[in-house]
């Protein structure tokens, strides 16, 4: 079991090194976050066929995966990404602030530049021994929760905001109560991994904790891999996670890959790619595709980050920046 996770870790490191090698020809580099490996493997194969028919070129798309923040930093530091497909808009904003992407990036593609969405669900042990059905059940005595560190993981920020938003939207809910709820929740976290994939490994392979807060697509992937060990519980309310995509202007203009890069991102909105996304358990934006896969996604009341938190910049500042609500929750622990 540990060997497998170790091997997986080593291959991902080797792969990261491989894709970090200098570009050859017209290969596109898609720098993405942790759980999209399988999605983009399928998308890239479909895009290669589509683009060859359209332009006669055979594009190869290379992938790089890691924590969303770390990936954004790598691009800022000079990783030659043609496109970035990250976990949250804040990370692409950070790249835009460095001047590599035009600041109006989110308006250039439909639906806030998010071709697919996801949400945050619970993964529990088979048979749901702790009887976890919704957010309040997480605070039952003896329940241990696994979620990554929101300072380093995009997925963890969605987890955190989903829990906060749930508490705030309850009858009589307000910021004080939401802070108390999230604080109680974090007290039940025995280990803060740095990324979503690491947290999944901790929960599934090492068997630690009773419930994993994670991306819906990541939960389904874990389910597919370990049929009899876990099951998915969808809470009544959760957050609409919109992982955005953008062309890295400075890089494509220098490499002359703008046409292919833009076609690649637009391809994500086609029924074909939407179908792939749905099969990989991302919620498709395309109405027809969504209708076809309606039964494979749980009915969850979804709220957006704009509606509850006023967008990513505001959410980042009040919750995850130094001195934000996450820090404040942990400060008193040190004085115990």
């Amino acid at each position: 079991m540990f060997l497998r996770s170790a091997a997986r870790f080593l291959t991902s490191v080797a792969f990261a090194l491989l894709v970090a090698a200098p570009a050859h020809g017209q290969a596109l580099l898609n720098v993405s976050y942790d759980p999209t490996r399988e999605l983009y493997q399928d998308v890239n194969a479909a895009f290669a066929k589509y683009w060859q028919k359209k332009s006669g070129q055979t594009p190869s798309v290379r992938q790089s995966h890691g924590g969303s923040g770390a990936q954004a930093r790598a691009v800022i530091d000079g990783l030659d990404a043609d496109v970035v497909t990250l976990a949250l808009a804040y990370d692409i904003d950070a790249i835009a602030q460095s001047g590599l992407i035009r600041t109006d990036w989110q308006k250039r593609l439909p639906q806030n530049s998010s071709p697919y969405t996801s949400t945050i669900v619970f993964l529990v042990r088979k048979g749901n021994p702790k009887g976890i059905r919704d957010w309040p059940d997480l605070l039952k005595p003896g329940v241990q929760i696994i979620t990554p560190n929101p300072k380093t993981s995009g997925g963890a920020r969605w987890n955190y905001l989903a829990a906060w938003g749930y508490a705030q939207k309850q009858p009589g809910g307000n910021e004080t109560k939401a802070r108390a709820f999230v604080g109680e929740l974090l007290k039940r976290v025995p280990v803060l991994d740095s990324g979503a994939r690491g947290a999944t490994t901790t929960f599934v392979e090492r068997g630690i904790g009773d419930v994993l807060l994670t991306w819906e697509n990541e939960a389904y992937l874990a389910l597919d891999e370990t049929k009899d060990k876990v099951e998915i519980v969808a809470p009544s309310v959760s957050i609409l996670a919109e992982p955005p995509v953008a062309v890295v202007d400075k890089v494509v203009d220098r490499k002359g890959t703008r046409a292919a890069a833009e076609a690649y991102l637009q391809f994500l909105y086609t029924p074909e790619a939407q179908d792939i996304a749905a099969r990989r358990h991302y919620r498709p934006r395309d109405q027809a595709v969504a209708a076809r896969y309606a039964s494979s996604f749980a009915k969850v009341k979804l709220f957006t980050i704009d509606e509850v938190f006023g967008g990513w910049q505001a959410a980042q500042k009040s919750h995850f920046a130094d001195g934000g609500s996450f820090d404040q929750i942990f400060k008193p622990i040190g004085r115990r």
Partner: protein
Amino acid sequence: MTRHSSNRRRVLPGFKVTLTFTIAGLVLVVLVPLATIPARAISAGPHALLLAMTDSRVISSFRVTLTTAFAAACVNAVAGPLVAWVLVRYRFPGRRVFDALIDLPFALPTAVAGITLAGLYGPNGWLGRPLAALGITVAFTPLGIVVALIFIGLPLVVRTLQPVIEDLDVEIEEAATSLGAPRTAVVRRVILPCLYPAWLTGFSLAFARAIGEYGSVVFIAGNIPMVSEIAPLMIVTKLQQYDYAGATVVAFVLMAMSFVLLLTINALQGWSARRLAG
């Protein structure tokens, strides 16, 4: 002793070439990268320096790093000499295998060590489960950090002491005994003084290595802010938040610690060598 100031007296040629390589290599590989850290920290400005250093999360991460590294180095300072002594002085089946195994923590990627230890000491692990029954949790607590640091530090102490123990002349111990020295006196007055400088070096190497260790620790630490977050993790965390200045400041403090530590140990060694000679 005459000084070798000209090449004529050397048996092997190539002094200038090798010296050039040595200096160029040291400057490029060691000096320049190390110099950029204080340079960056200073360019961040005194305000950022102060802000980063007074952050309670950063302070507690240094506390965690220093206490766990010290604890692990102390354990290794006791276990290391024992292991080295056994491997040098006794002959037993499998000795060579054990001797080779000592280097494993060096050769193993630290992440693998971390994953393995976390699995072993985790609540469902071979060792974690019986320990949990005794009320001891190792994985995802500061104790887990100490375990990982003992693992990576042990070979440093053993390998530093081994050659010194090999050089010890058994005849001197025999002479001391035949002159009527009791066993404790042989250990205290004859053996330990010879081992002392190497023992200090081994301890300091293990301590310095433990302060900087990241790969194996993050898997077993739990990484809970204020409790089990180590200083090197703070660097990574700050970088993830695009806080380059804050990350550099933490790096600078870690570097300064290593420096002070190594200088202190060098001074101690010089002192003990002089004492031995005199």
